[in-house]
């Protein structure tokens, strides 16, 4: 079956071209041509029926999946939930404390939600391991030992969509400030570096 052979009327016009102008008054040719008139009448009826079916399907309670469907989908999602990597917050003889990347991201998003004109999108959090001494932040061997360690250094990479017309540099600054406060308050460690990428404008 050739997919691009468009059905044509006896007068040579395509069904498509009549359909395209069906909302407008008939052209001079259409008023003269029996083929076109018949086709127009049929297509007008089809257009009306199509609209009616679209409306009734959307509102038809019988055309909805059972309530168990959503639950079944969410059960699978919960069982396969993605928490991202885990970040070691504190390590001591009597136990370690870790936090999931997702828990940190949600904290970042809660902070971002307080600022009008910005929608947070994907959030990746990298970790520079805590230095076990007071020494420099770049000590690569600073993995969690037995001693209680200083907090890890976070690198927060947040992508956001902004409302059109918003002052982006100002928004980014406020956002960074908000996040830098929220992480110590919500987790109890320093926020480290907060990188903001404005990737999109959202429709208001």
């Amino acid at each position, binding site marked *: 079956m050739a997919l691009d052979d468009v059905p044509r009327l006896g007068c040579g016009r395509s069904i498509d071209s009549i359909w395209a102008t069906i909302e407008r008054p008939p052209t001079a040719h259409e008023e003269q041509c029996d083929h076109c008139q018949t086709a127009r009448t049929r297509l007008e009826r089809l257009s009306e029926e199509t609209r009616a079916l679209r409306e009734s399907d959307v509102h038809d309670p019988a055309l909805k999946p059972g309530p168990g469907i959503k639950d079944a989908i969410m059960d699978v999602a919960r069982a396969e939930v993605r928490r991202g990597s885990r970040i070691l917050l504190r390590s001591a003889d*009597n*136990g370690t404390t*870790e936090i999931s990347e997702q828990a940190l991201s949600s904290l970042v998003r809660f902070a971002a939600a307080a600022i009008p004109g910005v929608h947070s999108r994907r959030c990746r959090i990298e970790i520079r391991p805590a230095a076990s001494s007071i020494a420099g932040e770049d000590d690569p061997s600073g993995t969690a030992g037995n001693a209680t360690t200083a907090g890890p250094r976070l690198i927060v990479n947040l992508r956001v969509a902004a409302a059109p017309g918003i002052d982006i540099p100002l928004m980014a600054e406020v956002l960074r400030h908000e996040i830098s406060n929220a992480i110590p*308050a*919500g987790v*109890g460690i320093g926020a480290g570096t907060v990188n903001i990428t404005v990737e999109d404008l959202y429709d208001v």
Partner: protein
Amino acid sequence: MSEAPLQGSIITSQLIASLAARTTLETPGVLRLEPTVQGFLARLGPAALRHLRNPGSQNGTYRHDGVTATISNGTARVHLDIATDIAFTALDVAETVQRRVRESISHTGLTPGAIDITILAIEHHRGPTIM
């Protein structure tokens, strides 16, 4: 496997797990214990069957939603997966949980070992939201 009485009672890893779970849930700032994929798979897999037959033993591991307890040579280790309330500082909540769980383990006569905590989620108290 013999279950030797300890101070007049048998302390199983299941008991330690439920003790730790209860203590955790009573700690302010903890919203719930959070089941993980690993826990889910463990319940489905052969290990789960083993647990059904022998739900917690004097020497062994018991795993339930969000809590794993292991008893070895009189020492109880616990791992907890928790969700915390955003109104609290997560690290402080974890520290309180660790202290309280250690206390409640010591009341059983066992020695508290490492109490490891993973904060899997931070949420508003009313439940998960898109914010």
